[in-house]
């Protein structure tokens, strides 16, 4: 069967010589995507990286400091001739080091870390804003009632620990213990969910 003129013909099978009309230019491979400047690297990645760092530290001042440290450390050795994938791999490797040093300095323990595969996927394709609250609501719903209630009051309704204690009719000290236990329980659930 003769292929239609508009159809794309397949690449030659291994061992089969490439068919080329005399005089037609040889196809040239396209350069992988590259950033034209350090500013393009920064502008394309700053929000992506900030979101990852915020998800690792949970507060704005630390997320800002760490994001700044990553760019300040990474932009020197990076070359603009590197592909976008290589630039992001390097940014993430730097982020892993910066985050580990942050936790070591602050708590002498690693609280969270960069997952090179999972976080790389987020860096390439940031998840929708609406995904995380749904997952959180599911985690809270899976907790025993009182655990779920105190986390709901604290994290979804922005109550202070004193207000949460009052709402649950328990002492302040008990509210802190309950919150601690609820978070440990939630941690186990988070670890079990993708």
């Amino acid at each position, binding site marked *: 069967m003769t292929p239609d003129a508009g159809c794309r013909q397949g690449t030659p099978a291994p061992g089969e010589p490439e068919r080329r009309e005399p005089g037609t230019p040889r196809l040239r491979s396209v350069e992988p995507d590259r950033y034209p400047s*350090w*500013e393009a690297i920064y502008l394309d990645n*700053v*929000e992506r990286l*900030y*979101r990852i760092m*915020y*998800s*690792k*530290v*949970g*507060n*704005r*001042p*630390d997320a*800002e400091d760490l*994001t*700044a440290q990553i760019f*300040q*450390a990474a*932009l*020197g*050795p*990076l*070359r*603009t001739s*590197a*592909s976008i*994938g*290589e630039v992001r791999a*390097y940014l993430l*490797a*730097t982020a*892993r*080091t910066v985050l*580990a040093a942050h936790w070591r300095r*602050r*708590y002498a323990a690693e*609280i*969270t870390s960069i997952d090179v595969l999972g976080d790389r996927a987020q860096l390439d394709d940031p998840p929708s*804003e*609406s995904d*995380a*609250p749904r997952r*959180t609501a599911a*985690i809270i719903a899976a907790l025993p009632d009182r655990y779920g209630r105190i*986390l709901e009051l*604290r*994290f979804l309704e*922005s109550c202070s*620990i004193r207000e949460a204690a009052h709402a649950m009719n328990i002492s302040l000290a008990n509210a*802190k213990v309950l*919150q*601690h236990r609820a*978070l*440990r329980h*939630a*941690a*186990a659930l*988070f670890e079990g969910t993708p």
Partner: protein
Amino acid sequence: MTIRRVSAFIDALLHNRRPPKFSPDADDIAAMRAAIELRAAQPGATIPNSEFVADLHRRLAEQQRAGTGNLEDLTHRRVSRRGLLQGATAAAAAAAAGVLVGRELVSNGSTAPSAMGGHLVPDHGTWQAVTTRAELANSHVVPFTTSSTVGFVVEDGRRLAALSGVCTHLGCVLRHNPTTNRLDCPCHRASFSLRGDVVRHEFAGPLAPLPHLSVRERDGTVEVYAPASD
């Protein structure tokens, strides 16, 4: 009492403040991790402040202008291997240093590769266990990662060798291809022999061979001499 400290940590997160320092135990760490996850899941929490983005942009531009991180200078600057390894050790711990080592050793297309390949000797290195003789006896090629270096240990007959596992083109991490018994670059299809020689590449200019690291065996444990992590 760490429950009080963890509560203060959570208060800080909920008010977007920097949390206080303390010494958490394993239960505290689990609770802190969950608190971070819950906080980050709040709608809009992870969107950066536009003033921060603009201010960091300005600070980086000043850094670039001051030459402390000038991309063009760095692209064309040659760095000695000893200086490089010393700098990498001090500047970038853990995996980032491994990437840095790889990146600074890559050819830039304007220089012959004669200064590359060869033997890497860090100024401040330590012997670091990377595999065992028993594992090598099974597979003959074992990839390793230390806090500063990625590479392969190769057993060729009774001789041990350790090679950098970073492509000398753009610093991609190489993979051992058991079919061809070569080290392949997943980025641009360069390939190296288990001795570090370039077998194939598609670049216009020459490509440097892989550098070797010092390697030894002690009581069945294989160690490489690599930059210390901190």
